[in-house]
């Protein structure tokens, strides 16, 4: 939890923050019922740091509110990443996240919901802590403003019980968009502290970018490289221990050829790892001893 006494850079609503006593109990709801049509694969199972993002966001939410439920369509209830979680299955008709939010508000009419989309890989503890700290239970919702367009962000927001009937009425007019709902109703809005925190990831390209930003850099590993004959002379040493991010002998040779000015092309060489012949594409492991074998001339 962040320091609750700290003020956010700006709060827009003039409503005073109510005491916890008259506020509805807060539950967590992770939205994982989308069809992931732009991603063309289930967004809940996309991985960051080797873990499905649904698991990551549930764990994050649980550090701030408990219990945390997962919003799904009925057809998704047995999907392995979701199965075994506390689920709230869509119980109202319609499409989009508004259905998941309304289903949760309907399932527990006395509860308020910290609603979080599962596709926000940059979401942080600080962002959730600040949202909860500035929750206004007398507004229909407490939400951040988008750092990109200044509009409310409905999918990292606290939805109060009173929003249930209002959302039903809104949806009854044929409206779908919870963002528009927030724009037209009395809600508390916060300026985001971290411009990127609420960026969602909808396409394979965005996913690739987010992984690059989030996954810690490939840790360089330590390898031993031994040199013989012409390569020993060109490297000016018979062996060296080095840190490399190269994943294969192919990448490693590219690195070393540039560093030592080796004249031999890869197709003139063979590779040995730990004193056995190996392929150019075999994954390297920390501690491997690698030898690039120039054309032999025994006898």
């Amino acid at each position, binding site marked *: 939890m962040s320091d609750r006494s700290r003020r956010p850079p700006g709060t827009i609503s003039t409503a005073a923050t109510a005491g916890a006593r008259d506020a509805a109990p807060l539950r967590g709801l992770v939205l994982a019922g989308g069809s992931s049509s732009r991603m063309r694969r289930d967004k809940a199972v996309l991985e960051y740091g080797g873990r499905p993002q649904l698991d990551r966001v549930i764990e994050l939410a649980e550090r701030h509110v408990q219990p945390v439920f997962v919003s799904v369509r009925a057809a998704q209830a047995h999907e392995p990443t979701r199965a075994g979680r506390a689920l709230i299955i869509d119980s109202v008709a319609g499409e989009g996240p508004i259905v998941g939010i309304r289903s949760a508000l309907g399932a527990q009419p006395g509860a308020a919901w910290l609603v979080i989309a599962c596709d926000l890989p940059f979401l942080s503890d600080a962002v959730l802590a600040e949202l909860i700290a500035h929750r206004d239970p007398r507004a229909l919702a407490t939400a951040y403003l988008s750092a990109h367009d200044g509009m409310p962000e409905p999918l990292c927001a606290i939805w109060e019980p009173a929003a249930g009937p209002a959302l039903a009425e809104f949806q009854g007019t044929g409206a779908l968009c919870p963002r528009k709902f927030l724009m037209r109703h009395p809600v508390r809005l916060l300026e985001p502290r971290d411009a990127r925190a609420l960026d969602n990831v909808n396409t394979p390209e965005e996913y690739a970018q987010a992984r690059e930003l989030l996954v810690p850099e490939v840790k360089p590993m330590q390898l031993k490289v031994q040199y013989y004959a012409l390569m020993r002379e060109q490297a000016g040493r018979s062996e060296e221990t080095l840190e490399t991010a190269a994943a294969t002998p192919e990448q490693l040779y590219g690195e070393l050829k540039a560093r030592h000015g080796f004249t031999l092309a890869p197709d003139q060489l063979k590779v040995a790892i730990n004193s056995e012949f190996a392929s150019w594409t075999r994954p390297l492991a920390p501690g491997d001893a690698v030898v690039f074998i120039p054309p032999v001339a*025994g006898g």
Partner: protein
Amino acid sequence: MRFRFSHGAIDPVAARDELREVSAGGFVAFEGWVRDHNEGEEVRRLEYEAFEALALVEGERILAEAAARFPLKRALCVHRVGSLELGEMAVWVGVSAVHRGEAFAACRYIIDEVKHRVPIWKKEHYRNGDSGWVNCERCAAAPRESAGAHPHEHAHEHAHEHALKD
């Protein structure tokens, strides 16, 4: 079946004695010697260097292949490493077998495979003061005969063998 390196002069008599067996009716050996010329250059001496850990494994593998192909009694290959003068023995291959035919064939197989596959390198020092790693420098740009089983096989033969003794 043994493959080993020698850092000093190879003793062919002792090596032959290792292959003696009363059921063997014949013995064939090949000796590779340091020659005074190669590719039109006058050679003054040679240096051999090996990646011994892998070379021993690959050498033993070749001997095992020979034993699987031909009905051998025993086989041995000894390869020199270090600096060699003209006329010195660089490699010794010996095979004992029941009959001469398989002994000749196995000996030929072993030396051919050793030259192509075992990670041993030869540096030639020339009369004019130059030197070069055979197959790596002077011929680095030459087209290779085969990109398949022996990607390092050369169009040129850099043989230093002179004699087949038995």
